[in-house]
């Protein structure tokens, strides 16, 4: 991982006596490479490097007997600060139902996560209602209905011939008449650059005023993570992020990119295909995973 690389960098420099700025630049280069290999977005790597450069050029490093360890500590400190603390709560509305909307790119894991979230929140005492808001993808409604059956959680659907805005509205009315206090709206996957579909989300938001809009992002997302998170946040407003497929071996640099650029917390981690595979997101664990 990065720790060993930095130790090696400074080992080679040990015989030379006092460290120079050029030596520190070499160490910073190792940090930059590690972050890129972990899929942290270009913009975020650049700003992270600028942030730690000053501390790394200070006397604490240049005169240290163990500069490698010092640099690693600085990197870890900055990364942990950037990633923030654990924030895995869903805002519960004072007047039910609480409305949660899941959005994101195609295939990120929204529908599966909707089921997982309903499962989790029911264990916390809620009476969830799943809403089949994807009227485009073949068998998307059936997919959510099957998950609902597996969990014994009701799924609200109006078929695929009705606008998702009307479906969301109908779901809230249904929840209110049937004592469901948490509505989870599954939406179709979409490109952040598709104006029409981004407008659809804005229309759903205007209609049912979600208490939480959660952006679902695949942990293996590469450089485009910043752009996607920024666009969804600027156009729609994102309250939190769910990072899926963290049970794989993707380094997950997208997590750092998203948090650094939007400031929104990553609330949950998808850790598998089963409906109990949703955990709180631990930023410190993510920081060490990114550094490798």
């Amino acid at each position, binding site marked *: 991982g990065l720790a060993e690389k930095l130790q090696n960098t400074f080992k080679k420099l040990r015989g030379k006596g006092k460290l120079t700025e050029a030596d520190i630049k070499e160490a910073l280069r190792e940090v*930059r*490479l590690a972050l*890129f*290999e*972990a*899929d942290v*977005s*270009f913009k975020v790597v650049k700003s992270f490097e600028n942030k730690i450069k000053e501390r790394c050029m200070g006397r604490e490093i240049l005169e240290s007997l163990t500069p490698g360890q010092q640099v690693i500590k600085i990197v870890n400190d900055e990364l942990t600060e950037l990633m923030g603390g654990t924030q895995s709560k869903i805002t519960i509305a004072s007047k039910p139902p609480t409305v949660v909307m899941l959005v994101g*790119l*195609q*295939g*990120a*894991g929204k529908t599966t996560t909707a089921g997982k979230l309903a499962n989790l929140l029911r264990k916390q005492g809620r009476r969830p209602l799943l809403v089949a808001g994807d009227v*485009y*993808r*073949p*068998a*998307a409604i*059936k*997919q959510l*209905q*099957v*998950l609902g059956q*597996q969990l014994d959680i009701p799924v609200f659907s109006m078929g695929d011939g009705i606008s998702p805005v009307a479906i969301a509205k109908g779901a809230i009315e249904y929840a209110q008449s049937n004592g469901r206090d948490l509505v989870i709206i599954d939406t179709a996957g979409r*490109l*952040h*650059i598709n104006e029409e579909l981004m407008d659809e989300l804005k229309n759903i938001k205007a209609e049912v005023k979600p208490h939480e809009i959660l952006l679902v992002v*695949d942990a*293996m*997302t*590469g*450089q*485009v993570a910043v*752009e*996607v998170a920024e666009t969804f946040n600027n156009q729609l407003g994102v309250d939190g992020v769910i990072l899926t*497929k963290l*049970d*794989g*071996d*993707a*380094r997950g*640099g*997208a997590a750092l990119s998203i948090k650094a650029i939007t400031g929104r917390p990553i609330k949950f981690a998808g850790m598998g*295909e089963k409906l109990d595979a949703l955990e709180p997101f631990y930023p410190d664990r993510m920081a060490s995973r990114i550094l490798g």
Partner: protein
Amino acid sequence: VSFTKQIDEDFFEELEEILIQGDVGVNTSMELVEKLRAQVKARKIEDPAELKAVLKELVREILGEETESLNLTGQPLSIFVVVGVNGVGKTTTIGKLAHKLKAEGKKVILAAGDTFRAAAIDQLEIWGNRAGVDVIKHNEGADPAAVAFDAVQAARARKADCLIIDTAGRLHTKTNLMEELKKVRRVIEREIPGAPHEVLLVLDATTGQNAVQQAKIFGQAAGVTGIALTKLDGTAKGGVVISIKAELDVPVKLIGIGEGMEDLRLFDAREYAEALFE
């Protein structure tokens, strides 16, 4: 940019930045820029406007100048298996491919090999309907190898030209699921000599460097013959395919450019290199 400007470090850095942002990967990006520097020296290039063109050449060189066609030489039928991690676009790509091959006069049959995920079989059936091709399926929870076996018999009996087998999404880190994939492959191999004729690894263009590991592990387990790179209608470039071609010699054969049945193209390295710099 004035024509009297010198080629300086900034130009190389700018191009390296474009590559990294396209998910080409930092090491491959640096190597490409090093090759570019060498070309600039060797060819005595003085105009910075030429740098991009040379870099596109270098990218095309790695990706392969020829369009790699799908292997449809199987006798009596060609068998394709479509594999990849979760959510990348396998089932949708199969629907598009069935439509394309049918339009080319081929008799196509699909196999619903994802017996695990909710409504996976339903999803493929809808695509089969749209494309006008039969779908062989078992019940949910059935053994995917049994579905594959049945599908091969049916395809042979119905004199199909091409059988395309859908598989469940699976992370390459899940050893038991990779074993399941190997079993599906073995069953096919035993039934038809030379099969499967094509093992397509579907990669999502938004995926970062993990795609290289996906290609390695799926390659080892299933013998990947080509890549279908999906979601190129977004802003992601899928630059990882350059490293994958360089390190594993697996070519991109298809690209997905949307969610509709027509949104499939044969891979064109020249067009791809152009788009990388847009």
